[in-house]
């Protein structure tokens, strides 16, 4: 990296970060500019393709959640839940209110562990000037410990219903294999109550962080439900007032490859869009309980926000929400007669979307009369955010100015990418592009 004419925006800029640290999976940053013009600026994804959609062909519907979970070790519930709900809806199965509530609890666990991990281990070292959370823990031990405690609590919520936190085994088409005992639930209620103060502290801490300003007028997209904060059921809504049912997904959302990039890009109505915690809080703030909304108001956190770095704050708000919501449900816990309903296979197209920690995820399966998968298609949130990540990088770099040093430009780009919490391991749709070097 030449630093000779570092103040000249006209200089040749060649920034290549071959291994992006503190992201899930394998990605690189590529940035070249000539004579003041950006030639190339993107997150390159080189995680090798694993062809999951083909493995699922011919499998019994019962195997789908187990196999699909293996796409991502950080958000296995997103894959299990989305496929299970898609299949149940096709089969006309209604597992009832107990299963509905417990599914919210287990998803709250996944949000809490994923958000706490991202905030403390991946994102905030950037803002406080550390290379990683281990270094950050030397100066901010209580903050990092609190983060790990919340992450651990999220994992324990997953374990209550799922048996383990990575690739849980408790969910099935129709409900759950097992209902937790009252004493297991009581233990967890005590820990959730004890963590409320920690979660409030986390929201206060992120509200007080000196985060950069990065305003982007993206079309936010999330699942909305009038009765509850959108997680598993509802309609797809957007800032631009689109309202779609899950069954209409294919008519409005398209995926395409572009020459210079390594991942599929999704568009809605022909344009890129933005999914994730900030999109959800922006669109569904009014569905948050009064305690959560009140805390935001007291701290001066205003949503909707177009500052992309408020994504960190949205994650902390949803972490608090996850605890409040899990408490609400578990305090009224009763063991059901059966934790699942029996289902009967029906042929057709199964579709569903849910909110993974890092944004909406969509699944579609064609299933035959014997309950076997004929074709599968799974669209992860990172694929949907690709277009926005790319526009965001370009807009922010041009605003910041090419006259800044390579190091500063690189840092800015890395911060922007990490802020989306891209989950590159969700590589069903991602492919490796040969690297072009002159």
């Amino acid at each position, binding site marked *: 990296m030449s630093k000779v004419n570092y103040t000249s925006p006209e200089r040749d800029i060649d920034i290549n970060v071959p*291994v*992006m*640290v*503190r*992201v*899930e*999976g*394998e990605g690189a940053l590529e940035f070249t500019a000539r004579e003041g013009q950006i030639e190339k600026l993107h997150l390159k994804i080189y*995680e*090798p*393709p*694993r*062809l*999951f959609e*083909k*493995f699922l062909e*011919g*499998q*019994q519907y019962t*195997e789908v959640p*187990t*196999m699909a979970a*293996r*796409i*991502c*070790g*950080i958000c*296995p519930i997103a894959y299990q839940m989305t496929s299970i709900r898609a299949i149940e809806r096709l089969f006309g199965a209604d597992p009832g209110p107990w299963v509905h509530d417990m599914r919210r609890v287990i998803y709250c666990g996944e949000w809490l*562990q994923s958000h706490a*991990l991202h905030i403390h*281990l991946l994102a905030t*070292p950037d803002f406080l000037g550390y290379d*990683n*959370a*281990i*270094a950050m823990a030397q100066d901010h031990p209580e903050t*990092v*410990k609190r983060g*790990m*405690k919340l*992450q*651990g609590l999220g*994992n324990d919520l997953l374990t209550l219903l799922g*048996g*383990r*936190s*990575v*690739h849980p*085994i*408790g969910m*099935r088409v129709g409900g759950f*294999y*097992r209902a937790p005992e009252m004493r297991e639930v009581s233990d967890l209620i005590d820990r959730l109550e004890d963590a409320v103060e920690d979660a409030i502290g986390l929201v206060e801490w992120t509200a007080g962080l000196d985060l950069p300003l990065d305003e982007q007028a993206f079309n936010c997209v999330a699942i909305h439900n009038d009765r509850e904060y959108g997680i598993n059921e509802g309609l797809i809504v957007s800032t631009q007032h689109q309202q779609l049912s899950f069954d209409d997904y294919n008519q409005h959302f398209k995926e395409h*490859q572009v020459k210079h990039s*390594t991942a599929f890009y999704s568009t809605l109505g022909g344009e890129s869009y933005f999914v994730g915690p900030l999109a959800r809080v922006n669109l569904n703030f009014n569905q948050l309980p009064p305690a959560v909304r009140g805390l935001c108001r007291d701290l001066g956190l205003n949503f909707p926000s177009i500052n992309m770095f408020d994504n960190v704050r949205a994650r902390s708000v949803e972490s608090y929400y996850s605890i409040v919501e899990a408490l609400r449900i578990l305090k009224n816990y009763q063991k059901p007669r059966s934790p699942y309903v029996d289902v009967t296979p029906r042929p057709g197209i199964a579709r569903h979307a849910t909110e993974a920690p890092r944004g909406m995820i969509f699944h579609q399966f064609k299933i035959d009369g014997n309950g076997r998968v004929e074709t599968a298609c799974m669209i992860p949130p990172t694929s949907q955010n690709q277009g926005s990540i790319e526009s965001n990088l370009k807009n922010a770099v041009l605003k910041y100015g090419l006259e800044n040093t390579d190091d500063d430009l690189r840092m800015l780009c890395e911060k922007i990418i990490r802020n989306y919490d891209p989950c590159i*391991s969700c590589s069903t749709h991602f*492919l*490796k*592009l*040969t690297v072009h070097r002159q």
Partner: protein
Amino acid sequence: MTTSTKKPRVSVHKFASCSGCQLAFINMGENLIKLTELVDIVHFAEAGPLGPDDEVDISFIEGSITTPHDVERLEKIREKSTFVITVGACATSGGIQALKNNADSDVWMRSIYAKPEYISSLSTSAAIKNHVKVDFELWGCPVDVKQMLAVVRQLLYGVAPLDINEKVCQECKRKNTVCIMVTKGEPCMGPVTRTGCGALCPSFGAPCYACYGPAENSNVKLLGERFIGLGLDQNVVKRKFLSIHNATPAFAEAKLLWSDTEGAQQ
């Protein structure tokens, strides 16, 4: 390993995988901070430290080998590491993605990617040991935090880690979990699967799906015949073995034992 004044150096590498086994480190919570007091973590991209080419005492490897570049990277890691330990199904047996080894992967690539020419990929997904010498294997999809900590502790004391390869059934007996195959006719893979998970699925009333891979002396043929006796279709039986650990020699036997009742055409 190293002199007593110097902390052992450890790296964590990733190949084709879901990143779930690295979480066994990240999910240690406060133990992770404790671990960093005992060892120097010199490379662990997801957590931050970056030093892929540094000399280390132990390299933990997650993921399977699926591209030509992976092979080069792996050989370099082996050269720089005193111990190489594979973590999880992908690194240890090739993982679920080794299912493509049985198929025409060109056809698969074309059916998923409109422009497959952009993809540089081997036609197989291989375990780490197919390419370099491996000193110890941690099985599981995913591995468990306790397994990981135990291995690190054993190595820190200079003890060879203990390989536990008994069956899930033994664990069920110790836990007093009633056998779900005997009492409910569930097609449980416990009798051929190595323990390490704590016999989790049967304790939830769910049949084991062999995420920890084959146990010692796995009798694939007889268990499969028992499943057929329970009313399962041959093809379903075959797929139960050809799942997460499809590339292990013990489970790959299922390909020869049961015919594909619907034909193998893609």
